[in-house]
């Protein structure tokens, strides 16, 4: 009876792990596809991502604990004293999935942001003209806010207001992209959590240096606050 129960429990955990990995792949695809379907509504796609995470959590990760408590544990307890080791297997599998899920969200947010950026950055790839003399205006392309643009010909100050989808780039989009480009440092930071405090602090610093360097490539006007931004984030994290 013992071997049969353990074999069935192992087979169940393997099946859940396989479904979990397949769900993450399908989930990422659904999130990326949703951008075209909702006409590049970034926040609707972000909601899709969070809803998928919630569903995978409810239908797969929590199901491991539920199945253990309601079906497997009573049978094993009645059969012998080996149930504690098998319980650990279930908890370990659920913990691994939670960590994998957090990483999946981190990466998928980055890929979603990358796809959105590719679309929205082109929205101002066109000429804009002075309202007074019709001369071409030099609009800053990596400044995702309204801006004053002085006409080089008549010196009139024009106010350029980009469309909302373009402005969105300057918020979560560049942050998620920067995080994606610092993925390697992020992984090292997570590993360093179990090391000594000094090693962890160094890993955190390395991560935020990379993160803000990538962010500055996307938002050059934030370069002058680089050091303060890094220190603030380190303080928040540690």
């Amino acid at each position, binding site marked *: 009876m013992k071997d049969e129960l353990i074999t069935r429990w192992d087979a169940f955990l393997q099946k859940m792990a396989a479904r979990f990995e397949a769900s993450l792949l399908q989930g990422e695809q659904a999130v990326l596809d949703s951008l075209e379907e909702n006409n590049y509504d970034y926040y609707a796609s972000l909601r899709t991502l969070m809803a998928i995470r919630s569903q995978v959590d409810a239908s797969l990760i929590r199901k491991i604990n539920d199945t253990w408590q309601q079906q497997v544990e009573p049978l094993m307890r009645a059969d012998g004293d080996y149930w504690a080791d098998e319980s650990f297997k279930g908890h370990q599998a659920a913990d691994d999935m939670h960590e994998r899920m957090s990483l999946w969200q981190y990466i998928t947010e980055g890929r979603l942001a990358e796809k959105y950026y590719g679309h929205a950055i082109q929205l101002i790839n066109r000429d804009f003209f*002075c309202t007074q003399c019709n001369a071409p205006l030099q609009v800053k392309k990596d400044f995702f806010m309204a801006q004053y643009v002085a006409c080089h010909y008549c010196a009139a100050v024009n106010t350029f207001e980009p469309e*909302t989808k373009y402005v969105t780039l300057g918020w979560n989009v560049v942050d998620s992209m920067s995080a994606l480009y610092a993925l390697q440092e992020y992984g090292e930071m997570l590993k360093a959590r179990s090391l000594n405090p000094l090693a962890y602090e160094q890993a955190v610093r390395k991560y935020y240096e990379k993160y803000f360097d990538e962010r500055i490539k996307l938002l050059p006007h934030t370069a002058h606050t680089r050091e303060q931004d890094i220190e603030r984030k380190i303080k928040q994290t540690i």
Partner: protein
Amino acid sequence: MSNPFKKISDTSRETAKKWDNTRTAPAVQTITCPQCAAPRPVNTNIASCAYCGFRFMDPSVTIKPQ
């Protein structure tokens, strides 16, 4: 086989809030003086018109503490 999460993305799209203050196209505009219709030249005071001296605002106004 269709994506099992398609229904979630459909629901997100259908239930998305329709904001009424979104800008769907970029715009360039110039604020002009209500008295002489001149635009503001670069590097000039935003409180008054550089051409006719019309005051757009009164910079001496102070905000009372609550």
